[in-house]
């Protein structure tokens, strides 16, 4: 058998499946990264909570609870493989009487399992994004906060208008990395039947017995995707850098 012929045959026979798989992978990585980033902001904020001794008792308890919750969530999710999380999610839902098989049935790719996969990758990404945003927030000079507070802006206004935009801007390269990781790692979601790129190749390979050709095709697609994403991130980085927008006085407070 000739690999070149196999590849040509696979592409002409299964191109629709590969395209749908590609769409699934893109959907998972974009939604997972986007919503995961949004949720990650709240995980980071939770991990930054510090009960203070002058806080009233209910604030101390509330802050302590949210701090514990976000820290535990972050540690557990980052400490277990997404494949295992997907399986726990699937069977956990079943125990609660929710079978994703019965949700949006009869649709090929964007079925219940895709929804389940979107939930899993989003919740997984949120934990990593929590760390990314936390590092970003800690990297913003405290002078930015003091400048804002000294004008009368509240802690919340300072966070959302001054500190967070800078934290996210500085975190763009790391956020981009998470996206690229998601493009590749969404492949593990096939364990719960999410129709992404690997899943498409797996089915095509078993249907045709052209294993090498199938996996070679998706390997190239994955590579192209990540290369293009990297290029996109580079261009974005250069565009933003050109504006010199986020350089500022460094050093916590001058010595004297």
């Amino acid at each position, binding site marked *: 058998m000739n690999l070149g012929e196999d590849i040509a045959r696979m592409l002409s026979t299964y191109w629709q499946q590969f395209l749908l798989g590609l769409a699934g992978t893109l959907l998972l990585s974009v939604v997972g990264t986007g919503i995961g980033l949004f949720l990650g902001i709240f995980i980071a904020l939770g991990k930054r909570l510090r009960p203070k001794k*002058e806080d009233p008792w209910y604030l101390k308890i509330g802050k302590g609870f949210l701090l514990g919750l976000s820290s535990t969530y972050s540690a557990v999710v980052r400490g277990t493989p997404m494949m295992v999380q997907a399986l726990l999610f699937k069977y956990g839902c079943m125990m609660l009487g929710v079978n994703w098989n019965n949700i949006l049935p009869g649709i090929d790719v964007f079925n219940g399992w895709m929804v389940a996969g979107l939930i899993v990758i989003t919740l997984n990404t949120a934990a990593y994004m929590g760390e990314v945003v936390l590092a970003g927030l800690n990297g913003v*000079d405290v*002078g*930015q906060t*003091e*400048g*804002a*507070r*000294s*004008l*009368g*802006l*509240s802690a919340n*206004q300072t966070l959302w*208008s*001054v500190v967070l*935009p*800078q934290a996210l*801007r500085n975190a763009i390269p790391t956020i981009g990395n998470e996206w690229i990781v998601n493009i590749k790692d969404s492949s593990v979601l096939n364990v719960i039947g999410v129709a992404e790129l690997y899943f498409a190749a797996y089915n095509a390979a078993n249907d045709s017995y052209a294993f090498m050709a199938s996996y070679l095709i998706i390997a190239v697609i994955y590579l192209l995707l990540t290369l293009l994403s990297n290029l996109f991130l580079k261009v974005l980085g250069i565009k933003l850098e050109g*504006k*010199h*927008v*986020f*350089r*500022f*006085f460094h*050093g916590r*407070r*001058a*010595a*004297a």
Partner: protein
Amino acid sequence: MSILEVRNLRKSFDGAPVLKDVSFSLEKGECLAILGNSGSGKSTCLRCINLLERPDGGSILFQGEDILSRKTDENRVRSRINMVFQSFNLFANMNVLQNCMIAQRKVLHRGKEEAKKIAMENLAKVGLSDKADAFPSTLSGGQKQRVAIARSLCMNPEILLFDEPTSALDPMMVAEVCNVMAKLRDEGVTMVLVTHQIEFARKISSKTLFLYSGVVDQFGDTGEVFAKPSPKFAEFLAVEKSM
């Protein structure tokens, strides 16, 4: 009634007393210079007045109101007593105009057009009308500090606190910032200035306070304090002059 009255202010960091007993008062329209060695507690004193630090004891009366009381709205007080920092602290994610507008919009709830008009007026006052669209990172140190002053002026503060506003600047740029401060003093803006520029402090201030390791060593009319310096203040002046 004094606009600001500080009584027996005390503040420690990790058990180390930084302000031991600081008292002074300031009348509306006055300029107070706070002088002292590095580490004597000057910044801490300003930061307590601006409520960036919470003192351990003593009281601070602003227009007769005890701002250390639990009932005080800290954000409102901060919007009335602004601080200009050595490190400028301009918002890096906003251009000059936005820097000058955000607190007007969010704290004073001014309309967009009004806030913009006031911002442009104050930028004109510090000579930076043409920099409204520039981002802080593209400005020189002196320009940054003048923007920071304009940003505070937009709030129509009752008191402006300056914490070594020229210490991070090249000598060339010190004068442009000093000129702005002198102009404000002439307009009757109440201010407290911490600086190591003794001659400028002497020229601009009506009152002088010499802080020595967390204690007020001398406080009074600038003319008198310089005419009859205490031994410690005299030594401080001699050392500063020799530098």
